[in-house]
């Protein structure tokens, strides 16, 4: 099967090169025979890579330990679902996964895109095939997942215990789907630039693809946070690690694009900026891959160091030079159709929102690279950790949070004083009430106070938007309130789906602010001994060590330390944290395969998480060392992830929302209507 896999990789590589060369030249020379061939080749590349993926999965499933990748990441006693996820657990397999998914996206872009964009599609095929060919070339020449070993071991090394978690079966694919699908908007942007078809057509073609990337990346990042929280045992979910930062960067620039593209669609402005954002986002996705796979910056999430980093660095430089040079050559074709009419307008608010998104992205990139810059300039190695990122980014983030509320309140083109008064009175009052309530409850942490006050403000703006929309439908159509609500969202999916996403961001902010009130302590307890810890809400938790039991399960020996919980003297059941010693069996002997790993005990509710880590025994007895942590409001972050996914799905749901062409035309005209008698724009 590995021979077939190798053959499939070479086939995909040759077809990718063919597509890349002929796609550009065929479209440029106006040869429909060549462009048709290119589009067909995209499907063939996809088929070849699917065959390669099937071959690797077959090798994994049949424990073919002669394949170096199978030996390095699986073992005979590894549960089946982790054998499936081992496909993307290592450098080589994840490269194949990347190439396969990209080829599927490339084929879908050809199959699903409207024929309106048929002039762009050959170029799109050429760009996507170039990227696929690059990834396949990395596999063929530097990181071959089908490489065989000189001898066949009886068993594999097994999968790193920290990757044996349900989060790791879905977090990497989600993140990859986000990273990979960015290639499609980039391909359409390049196609629009090459073909000089720079009207709003290409924007419509890529908006949903960008939303798909944005959503997958957001879900992937949230799942990564969840995995870090439940699996790594440090009691947090975001450490500003370079690899974490690398996933955040394209998400930030894509979010900027999703806002600024509205200005291009509605007003014909920011064309250069939007194309720059798309090209930049693609660069950042490749940069993230480079960081993760090169080992150039220390990270706990990196793959093993290898020479594939050079491939990615070269590709990053070449594709960046190509994209930005192309943009520069078409600069004169990208004049704005209208100019900004007022600084007090939604367009201006979106401009500043974009400035902040890109500013935060820059500060994250700058902080990630600053150790390298410092070493180059001063010859001194430094560390840039969470204190740096929090100090630089928290103020920018709070400004952005404020704009999340301000932007939707301001009218397009120009807001009048009356409009501002009508829109801002309620939300500002809500912010005041929130701040007063928080101060009265004794909260004094400045940033947490500010974040929650702004969250109150933004929440009020969203409620106001929904309230007015529902009331308008209720009055105009006589619909009941629930029906009016559902139809309001269903017929304005993009706008109200966006508001739901804003709600999700608020929920995240509430969760993040909660970490300012974290409580923790270490304790060594013999069976029957207790320790107390006060929660930020004033409750006192009592943790009583029950004992440690040891047993064997699947591929590991488990040492389970059990703690009895009581809150304010009332029993709340037991929690169990584990140490797991994974093993492989050689010649009938159990051999430890990794360091013992920790399984954290977590009890989560709306207010706080109890987070217990069993550190280990004292002198081989049942006397145990624990870390007890109370993390407030963490549940809200995971809930925010669900809300964000829900809002994202509503926003990208296909169809026009049931708006008739006539009504759509009138609605569009409405943007330019000067209402008789008011003298103000609508």
């Amino acid at each position: 099967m590995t021979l077939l896999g190798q053959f499939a990789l070479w086939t995909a590589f040759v077809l990718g090169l063919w597509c890349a060369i002929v796609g550009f030249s065929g479209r440029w020379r106006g040869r429909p025979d060549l462009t048709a061939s290119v589009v067909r080749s995209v499907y063939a590349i996809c088929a070849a890579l699917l065959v390669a993926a099937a071959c690797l999965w077959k090798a994994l499933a049949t424990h073919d330990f002669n394949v170096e990748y199978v030996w390095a990441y699986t073992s005979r006693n590894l549960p089946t679902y982790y054998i499936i996820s081992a496909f993307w657990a290592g450098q080589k397999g994840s490269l194949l996964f990347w190439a396969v998914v990209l080829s599927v996206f490339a084929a879908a872009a050809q199959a699903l895109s409207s024929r309106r964009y048929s002039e762009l599609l050959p170029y799109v095929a050429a760009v996507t095939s170039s990227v696929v060919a690059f990834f396949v070339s990395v596999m063929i020449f530097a990181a071959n997942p089908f490489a065989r070993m000189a001898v066949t071991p009886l068993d594999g090394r097994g999968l790193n215990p920290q990757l044996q978690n349900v989060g790791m079966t879905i977090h990497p694919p989600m993140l990859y789907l986000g990273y990979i699908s960015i290639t499609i908007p980039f391909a359409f942007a390049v196609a629009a630039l090459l073909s000089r078809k720079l009207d709003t057509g290409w924007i419509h073609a890529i908006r949903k693809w960008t939303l798909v990337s944005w959503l997958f990346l957001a879900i992937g990042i949230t799942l990564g946070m969840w995995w870090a929280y439940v699996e790594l045992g440090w009691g947090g979910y975001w450490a500003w690690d370079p690899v974490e930062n690398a996933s955040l960067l394209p998400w930030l620039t894509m979010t900027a694009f999703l806002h600024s593209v509205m200005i291009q669609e509605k007003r014909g402005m920011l064309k250069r900026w939007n194309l720059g954002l798309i090209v930049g986002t693609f660069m950042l996705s490749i940069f993230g891959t480079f960081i993760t796979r090169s080992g150039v910056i220390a990270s706990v999430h990196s793959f093993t160091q290898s020479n594939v980093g050079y491939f990615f660095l070269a590709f990053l430089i070449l594709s960046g030079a190509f994209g930005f040079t192309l943009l520069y050559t078409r600069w004169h074709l990208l004049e704005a159709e209208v100019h900004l009419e007022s600084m007090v307008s939604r367009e201006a608010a979106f401009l500043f929102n974009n400035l902040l998104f890109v500013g935060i992205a820059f500060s994250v990139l700058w902080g990630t690279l600053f150790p390298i810059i410092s070493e180059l300039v001063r010859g001194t190695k430094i560390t840039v950790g969470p204190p740096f990122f929090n100090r630089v980014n928290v103020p920018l983030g709070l400004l952005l949070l404020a704009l999340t509320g301000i932007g939707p309140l301001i009218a397009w083109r120009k807001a009048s004083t009356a409009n501002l008064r009508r829109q801002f009175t309620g939300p500002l009052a809500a912010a005041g009430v929130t701040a007063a309530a928080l101060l009265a409850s004794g909260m004094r942490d400045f940033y947490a106070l500010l974040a929650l006050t702004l969250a109150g403000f933004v929440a009020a703006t969203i409620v106001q938007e929904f309230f007015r929309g529902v009331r308008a439908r209720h009055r105009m159509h006589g619909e009941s309130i629930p029906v009016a609500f559902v139809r309001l969202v269903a017929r304005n999916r993009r706008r109200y789906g966006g508001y739901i996403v804003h709600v999700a961001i608020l929920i995240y902010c509430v969760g993040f602010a909660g970490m300012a009130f974290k409580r923790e302590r270490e304790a060594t307890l013999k069976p029957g001994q207790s320790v107390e810890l006060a929660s930020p809400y004033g409750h006192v938790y009592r943790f009583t060590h029950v004992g440690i039991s040891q047993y064997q399960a699947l591929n590991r020996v488990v040492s389970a330390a059990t703690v009895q919980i009581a809150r304010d003297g009332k029993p709340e059941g037991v929690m169990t944290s584990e140490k797991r010693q994974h093993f492989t069996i050689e010649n009938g002997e159990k051999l430890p395969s990794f360091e013992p790993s920790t399984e954290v005990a977590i009890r989560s509710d709306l207010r706080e998480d109890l987070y217990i880590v069993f550190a280990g025994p004292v002198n081989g007895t049942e006397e145990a060392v624990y870390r007890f942590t109370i993390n407030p409001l963490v549940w809200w972050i995971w809930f925010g992830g669900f809300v964000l996914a829900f809002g994202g799905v509503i926003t990208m749901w296909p169809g026009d929302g049931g708006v008739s062409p006539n009504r759509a035309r009138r609605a569009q005209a409405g943007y330019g209507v000067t209402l008789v008698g008011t003298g103000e724009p609508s």
Partner: protein
Amino acid sequence: MNNPSPTGRRAFLRSAGLSVAATLGAAYAAAAAQVPGTLPGSGANGSLGDPAAAGRPQAPTTDRDNDAAVQTIEKRLRCTCGCTLDVYTCRTTDFTCTSSPQLHREVLQLRESGMDGQQIVDAFVAKYGEQALMAPKPQGFNLAGYLVPGALVTTAGLVMLWILGRRRLVPASERAPIPVDATPEELARLRDALADGDS
């Protein structure tokens, strides 16, 4: 055919009594030899069957481990094990690191010698280099790290304002109304709807 000598009732009872006593004695000896308290919740401090499988052996924690001042210092110092975490987080994460407990002991020793937080941090920088800090000191070239992002955002914002301010904004009176294919009644409904839901 040999008749076995019949066992007397007394002899039978004596041997049965001895057997029962021996069994009970053996059971008691076995129970005494067994490690007590291996069942959860027994209250005794039993031994683990496989201590190596339960993680690295731990030293009992002390009040100094929970000293907030010590934790604050350790959160400013980076662990040298190759992770990207601070000393406190690393030594309390998974509890498998061998470097962070050593660094923790160094912090405690320096604190016992009478140093305050900043002096301990400085001592670490002197020993391990600037890399020992979780964030670079905001001085010299490092200031660029802290100030460049904020300065760029501020400058870009000001430049944006300047450029937009130089442009002649189109006054509302010069904007020609776009002809709309709608009846006056429809326009009136549009106006009402906008009054309710405009944003």
